[in-house]
């Protein structure tokens, strides 16, 4: 037994490990035996931390001394729906401080839903000499001053991506901080910035970076400028246009069309704010090469959408507003046989009446016509069990199925029954389903189905569903692979949660807001489960000013080996042994 370990030198094993990069496999390797654990930890270069409070920077650094790339996630997913109050947490600064000392050779930082300050950005710019990749996805807390620091100091920067972040946009001047000698840009995404950047600086930057592959502009870049940029960078693979608002000018149009036709490598297109449909034909020349199209900001109506989409026979991913309507989805199903992912967003989510002719039929068509479709996010106003059954049978390959019927508790519009059976069919047929969001009128029955069939389910989102604790119990006891569970406005209380307390340690996190979990249960959970952080988020004031049986507003439970966090705002209470001692 030990023979193998002895004759196989560490460096060789390390070399073998260098060909294994997936987090899952690296984690498996580290669990094989003590010697492999040791070797693996010294050669791990990339770390993913799904919850920044699950572990402390010091712990990561201590275990993995040679990390070059880190990815951190902060706030829970429901923060996207404004359910997490401002100031909750997710501060990256402590991580940057620790890594500035421990990882001077750090190259990549990827953050999602974290609070990033200018101070953090400045520290990054100063501390990591070989810094290459900064991705701030749905982050907030920084301004363009911080970006200027990055631009000015990171000589080897390859990627700067501000995907959907909230930036305090003081001015567009930061872009000019890239020195003239800087030429290594590969990817730039500034689509979330509001103000105008200096166009000449942008053009010069684009012109001197021969490796630029991805450029996503912000709305402030007008159409006229786009052609110039494209001519500077015909090697682009991904493009996010600026604003297209302009009345049709023939010379601008032909200039643009010409520029686009020169971009033979273009595979992904996005942006299209305020697009005037008359300009769309300018991109027709590159449509056949497109694999990804993001029109979720474009108020293009169905006929124009159909014309556009029908040209994209190789499309694999489409994000679009519901202006596409059923007829547009029919056309999509007919032309885009390689479609893998579809997201249909609501153009008027708060309106009471439907403003477009988009129904469940569109989704049925696509599930029928696109054999490779495996990921769907679909907002609509009506659904039926029959349609869901058809979809499930047509497409058992779904790995991600997120259906959002806009009005809560909407029943099957044909039978007025709950949609339990329909979603049941989805989980039953789609054996590889990893992510599911349910909506509409749902009883505990649907959770029985989910618990029974959702064996590969990793993430589940519930809203306005279920009758009582049994529903939650089915999910927690049945879904073996569940990692993230997020619940809002469901009548789940204490019993299921406490009965399945041990399950919570096998998951990354549980979010429950506007449910019926009492303060007493939270305390109990916090006391009994030292490896869970049980956070009660309540903006009404201290929970012990109310009776113990009173339900908490919001509850966020996550496993952690870092213990209770110390950066909680006034409206978050940590339930742990100390608090129990303190408060009792």
């Amino acid at each position, binding site marked *: *037994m030990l023979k193998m370990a002895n004759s196989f*030198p560490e460096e*060789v094993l390390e070399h*073998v490990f*260098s060909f*294994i990069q*997936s*987090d899952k496999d690296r984690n*498996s*390797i580290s669990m094989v*035996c*003590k010697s492999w*654990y040791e070797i693996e930890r*010294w050669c791990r270069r990339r770390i993913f931390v*799904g*919850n920044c409070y*699950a572990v402390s*920077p010091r712990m*990561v650094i*201590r*275990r993995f001394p040679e990390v070059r790339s880190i990815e951190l996630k902060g706030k829970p997913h429901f923060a996207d729906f*404004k359910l997490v109050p*401002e*100031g909750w*947490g997710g*501060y990256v*600064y*402590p991580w940057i401080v620790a890594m500035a000392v421990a990882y001077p050779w750090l190259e990549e930082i990827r953050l999602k839903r974290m*609070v990033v300050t200018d101070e953090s950005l400045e520290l990054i710019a100063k501390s990591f000499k070989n810094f290459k990749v900064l991705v701030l996805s749905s982050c907030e807390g*920084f301004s363009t001053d911080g970006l200027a620091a990055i631009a000015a100091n990171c000589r080897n920067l390859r990627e700067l991506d501000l995907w959907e972040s909230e930036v305090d946009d003081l001015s567009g001047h930061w872009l000019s901080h890239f020195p003239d000698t800087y030429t290594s840009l590969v990817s730039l995404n500034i689509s979330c910035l509001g103000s105008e950047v200096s166009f000449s600086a942008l053009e010069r930057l684009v012109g001197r970076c021969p490796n630029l592959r991805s450029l996503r502009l912000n709305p402030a870049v007008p159409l006229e400028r786009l052609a110039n940029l494209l001519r500077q960078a015909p090697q682009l693979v991904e493009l996010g246009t600026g604003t297209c608002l302009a009345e049709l000018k023939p010379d601008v149009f032909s200039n643009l069309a010409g520029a686009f036709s020169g971009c033979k490598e273009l595979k992904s297109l996005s942006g299209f704010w305020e697009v005037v449909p008359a300009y769309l034909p300018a991109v027709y020349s590159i449509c056949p090469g497109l694999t990804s199209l993001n029109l979720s900001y474009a108020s293009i109506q169905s006929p124009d959408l159909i014309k556009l989409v029908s040209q994209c026979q190789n499309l694999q991913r489409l994000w679009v507003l519901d202006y596409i309507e059923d007829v547009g989805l029919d056309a999509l199903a007919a032309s885009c046989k390689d479609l893998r992912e579809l997201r249909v967003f609501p153009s008027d*989510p708060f309106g009471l009446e439907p403003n477009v002719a988009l129904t469940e039929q569109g989704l049925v068509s696509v599930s029928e016509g696109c054999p490779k479709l495996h990921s769907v996010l679909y907002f609509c106003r009506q659904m039926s069990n029959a349609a869901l059954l058809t979809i499930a049978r047509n497409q058992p390959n779904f790995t991600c199925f997120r259906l959002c019927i*806009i009005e809560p*508790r909407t029943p099957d519009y044909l039978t007025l029954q709950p949609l339990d059976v329909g979603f049941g069919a989805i989980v039953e047929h789609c054996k590889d389903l990893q992510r599911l969001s349910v909506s509409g009128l749902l009883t505990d029955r649907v959770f029985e189905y989910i618990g029974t069939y959702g064996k590969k389910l990793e993430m589940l989102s519930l*809203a306005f569903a279920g009758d009582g604790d049994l529903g939650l119990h089915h999910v927690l006891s049945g879904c073996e*692979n569940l990692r993230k569970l997020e619940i809002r406005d469901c*009548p789940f*209380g*204490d019993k299921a949660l*406490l*009965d*399945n307390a*041990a*399950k919570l340690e*096998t998951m990354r996190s549980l979010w429950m807001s*506007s449910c*019926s979990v009492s303060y007493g*249960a939270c305390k*109990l959970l916090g006391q*009994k*489960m*030292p*490896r869970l952080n049980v956070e009660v988020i309540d903006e009404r004031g201290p929970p012990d000013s109310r009776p113990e*049986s009173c*339900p908490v507003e919001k509850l966020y439970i996550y*496993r*952690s*080996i*870092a*213990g209770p966090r110390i*950066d909680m705002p006034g409206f978050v209470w940590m339930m742990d042994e100390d608090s129990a001692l303190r408060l009792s």
Partner: protein
Amino acid sequence: MSEGVMAVVKPEMKSYIWLQTADGSIQQVEEEVAMFCPMICREILQTGMGSSKNYAISLPQRVNPAILGLILDYCRFHQVPGRSNKERKTFDEKFIRMDTKRLCELTSAADSLQLKPLVDLTSRALARIIEGKTPEEIRETFHLPDDLTEEEKLEPLRNITDDPRIRLLNRLYARKRKELKEREKLKNVEVEEERVDERSVEDLLTFINGGGEDSKGVRANKNKKKNRRRKDHPKDSSSNSVYGNHNKELDVLSSSCHDGEVNNMASPSKNSKLQDSTSVTFSPKLEFDDGDIDDDIDPAMKEELDREVEDFARRLNSDWPERMQEILSLGQERRLVPISMNGNGSTHRYTSMSCIVWIGDNNLMVNDSFVRMSSSSFEWIARDASMRFAAEEAVEELAMSFGAR
């Protein structure tokens, strides 16, 4: 002899190199094939060895005759200059097909001969074998020791949660901390009474607080309106939650809780492994927020404690194995495994990373590990500073319990 004669008579005039493997056997191989191995090549050029049987080049120990044969086959093929990339690739793919054990030997041998292309080829093949497997499967495939203890393996969280010893531990510790806090309060008010302590002097809790006390993040409280229309769920202000019927359930729960054993914690589903495949697999450890225990200790006592900590740490570091023997010889029912003390992970392989907890006089409980082989075990066992902290705390307890210091 005939071989020699034949050599002279042979028309080809091929040059041969003599190689000797660790078992003593010698073989000869065409020069150009042998030269393909950097290590052999260097030997030949620098030392002039290999030209005859008596001066055979000694190969590294990791190269046995069978493996040498394989390596030479590889060299023989690849040293031919004219081959296309496709040909080479096809050969490689076929060449690699062998059982895992042999593949390991080959990788190791190729490495010792510094034959990088073959090392890469075999390493990649091994990587492919490893990918997608569970730790158990990997262990089986490579005949590796299963030396991570029971709780450190695949389902540590489930085991840990269900382990009654750990639950007991948690409760005891919580109680103890409460006592400590109360005692702190009392200390300032009255003369500390001699606390009757039923636990043995050797009470020792060797957890370390590894919680992140990093600097607070700078908070940004910018109130920006998010343009997230397309992701918004429509808000339903009507509250549909059912608040009733809690009290009854809760009463039942709290009463059973006071009895010390919350029996309604059902065990989670059977195969709930550590699911977070995409997150850092840190096993949670028992975190004890000791931050405030050191407060309010008067300076004299603190000094005393500091000295004790030093002593204590030194004692632990040196005596531990002996102490273990001592305890083992006491003949009580216990399972003990020594703690490994040293810091640098890479060169130290200890047979166990367990932790010992002593609760009560004779009731020695061992938790083989609260944590998997994770950073936690290293950090709370390995580093001096951390050790100090735990030691500090333990010493303080001792001080408290004896009242006098």
